[in-house]
């Protein structure tokens, strides 16, 4: 089983602690949700795991299926990231084919796998010739997911993968991620500010506030019966029409 362990990860930007001593483990077949408000340090963690930002201190350890640590140079074969904004994460100049063929080639695979990659994310292989501006937001995000799968990654970091999408297609994308995770036994880190989807699409939840993890545990426990005052506040702040109409609460 491929696992990614984050140990005492810390990042300072100009003296400000963006991420403060964070530790957790991603294991195959499980989704961990990282929830918190904007500025809580969630995306910085994603970027450190994706090796876009260097940690100030702490370790990120990747262990292969046989329990041996994997060498640094093959890190990107195993760990990939899905970005928040599919309108920004695809290069407007290049075709869908380019976006998938490059990572395939870089990781020793053949570009003939492009059609099957598109099918894995429920897109028609005909889309390969199109450019990003010819695709809808949902289609773009599916292409971005296919790109993350292309190197054969076993660990996927999904940084707010649906928050820039129209509401009616969000669940479809989340269900796709859940299906891929189940079928291919991936380790997934789902970063979001939306507690409801975090609860339904993850096994474990980490709640972040000002760079620290303030509460963690199985998703139902943390989000339905929160202990930490900050988590409670977050849970209470989400709009809840249920309370207004079904339980006769004040309007």
């Amino acid at each position, binding site marked *: 089983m491929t696992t990614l362990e984050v140990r005492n990860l810390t990042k300072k930007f100009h003296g400000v602690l963006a991420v403060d001593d964070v530790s957790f483990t991603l294991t195959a077949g499980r989704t961990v949700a990282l929830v918190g*408000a904007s500025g809580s340090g969630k995306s910085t963690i994603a970027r450190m795991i994706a090796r876009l930002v260097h940690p100030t201190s702490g370790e990120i350890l990747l262990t292969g299926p046989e329990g041996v640590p994997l060498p640094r140079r093959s890190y990107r074969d195993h760990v990939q990231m899905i970005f928040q904004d599919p309108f920004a994460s695809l290069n407007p100049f290049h075709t869908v084919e380019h976006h998938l063929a490059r990572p395939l080639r870089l990781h020793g695979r053949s570009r003939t796998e492009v059609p099957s990659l598109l099918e894995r994310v429920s897109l028609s292989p005909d889309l390969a010739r199109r450019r990003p501006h010819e695709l809808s*937001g949902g289609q773009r995000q599916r292409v971005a997911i296919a790109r993350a799968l292309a190197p054969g990654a076993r660990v996927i970091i999904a940084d707010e993968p649906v928050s820039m999408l129209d509401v009616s297609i969000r669940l479809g994308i989340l269900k796709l991620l859940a299906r891929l995770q189940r079928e291919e036994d991936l380790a997934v880190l789902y970063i979001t500010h939306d507690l409801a989807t975090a609860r339904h699409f993850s096994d474990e939840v980490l709640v972040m506030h000002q760079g620290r993890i303030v509460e963690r545990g199985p998703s139902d426990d943390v989000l339905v019966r929160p202990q930490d005052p900050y988590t409670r506040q977050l849970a209470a*702040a989400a709009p*809840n*029409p249920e309370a207004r109409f079904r339980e006769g609460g004040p309007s």
Partner: protein
Amino acid sequence: MTWSGKLVTGLGLAALIVLFGLFGPLFTGDPATIRDIGLTPPGGEHLLGTTLTGQDVLAQLAHATRGSLWIGVLVGVMATVLSGVFGIVGAYAGGVVDEAFSLFSNVMLVIPGLPLVIVVAGFVPADQRGTWTISLVLAITGWAAAARVLRAQTLSLRNRDYVAAARVSGERTWRVICVEILPNLLPLLASQFVFAVVLAILSEAGLSFLGLGAANSSTLGTMLYYAQNGFALQREAWWWFVPPGLIIALFGGALALINFSIDEIINPKLRDRARRKRDVVAATAEVAPAEPGAVLTVRNLNVVYQGDNPVHAVKDVSLTLRRGEILGLAGESGCGKTTLAYAINRLHRPPAEVTSGSVTFEDVDVLALGPEELREFRWVRLSMVFQGAMNSLNPVTPIRAQLQDVLRTHRPGMSTPDRELRCAEVLRLVGVDPARLGAYPHELSGGMRQRVMIAMALLLDPQVMIMDEPTTALDVLVQREILNEIKRLRDELGFAVVFITHDLPLLLELSDRIAVMRDGEVVEYADAEDLYLRPQHPYTRELLASFPSLTGEPGALTR
């Protein structure tokens, strides 16, 4: 791409001159042949006449054009490569490399170009001053400004997610620059190349005219130099100096036109500026009698984005806003909700056009208002909080000035202490300490700035506020505070609100009535409770199902 007149004219002229430079010398004979027919006016054997020493001006012109173009292209290529290396590579690499490259570009930029060229060209002995030397000197003095522009653009591109994605997939740095960044800089590079060519041809002409040009070369500049030395002007031999001057001017003009067109391709906003009018309201139907208690009535409103493919953004929308009511307008991106809000406020800009329908505010026909009446209506009776409004505060003035500006414009009679009092009062209303009046926007958090925007919308006691996604960019906790604030203010001040968002659960909690929009149409319009408990339209049900409940059972959401 449609071919604009500018582009066609520019390309046509430039192509003619390039063809003349390429093929002219093949047909015009030797430009150096001296004949004893000095200063023959145009006509007969010599179409453009002859020089003082009887050389054919047309033949000279053809060779000179070729020489000038060659220098232009050489310098264009070299300057573009230099600016690319220093601008793009520096910006992408960042850190010390960027600092060093940027410092170097800046130093090159402040050195005045032409004097340096004259000094350098003057130092190189005339017999070693070939075309390449001159081109190199011109390129070295001419790349820096372009490098700065490229650096700024690359700095913005390197932070794009697609560049980060390429790095995550393991692309090497040079490939990220060449394959991911460079293609997106192409229009910019093209326009800078064109500019460098024009500049080189002009500078070379200037140098040659001063006798500092390339030795043994023939360019439009050397032609002018000889014409000057042969007293062409005094001898009224216009055919000697007008043609080279004209070619320089025409070629410069042609390339400038091409550059304008490139700008228009990069920035489509420049394209149809000429077509734009101020405010477009095509048809105003008869004003329907308003329902009692209604403050704002929209009847069968249609808004179309005119163009080659007109887009019907708002289709036959009818809504009624009652006094003190919160009306939710729900819909996804592109459903027309923002266009509708703008049309109600008459803020829509061409190509958007209200093709039919009516907007009635109490007894005022909004679509029929003249410019002055409109100014008295907007913000005074109906104000708006825009999407991302918190970023639309002016960063360089304190919020006091920005609030007072509204009062100064709309209540010119108000005294300064009264204005101050009113500003403090509205800040207190939205839960911001009036002591913050002196603060600059960057000193306030996003939530605070959004409250200030709401305060600004409240300043003139409007009866209606339109709020377009006022909390979308904010945290859930801040959103909660602002929603509570809006409900409280509505109860205290009794104004009505049109609240626009894609977040249906939020509207269900906040609104009295909700209109669900899709593809420009209102597909369902009902009391919030009915909409929640008994949604009629399939799209409403789909939207409702898109928001899983935090506390409810997963149900259909099982993974």
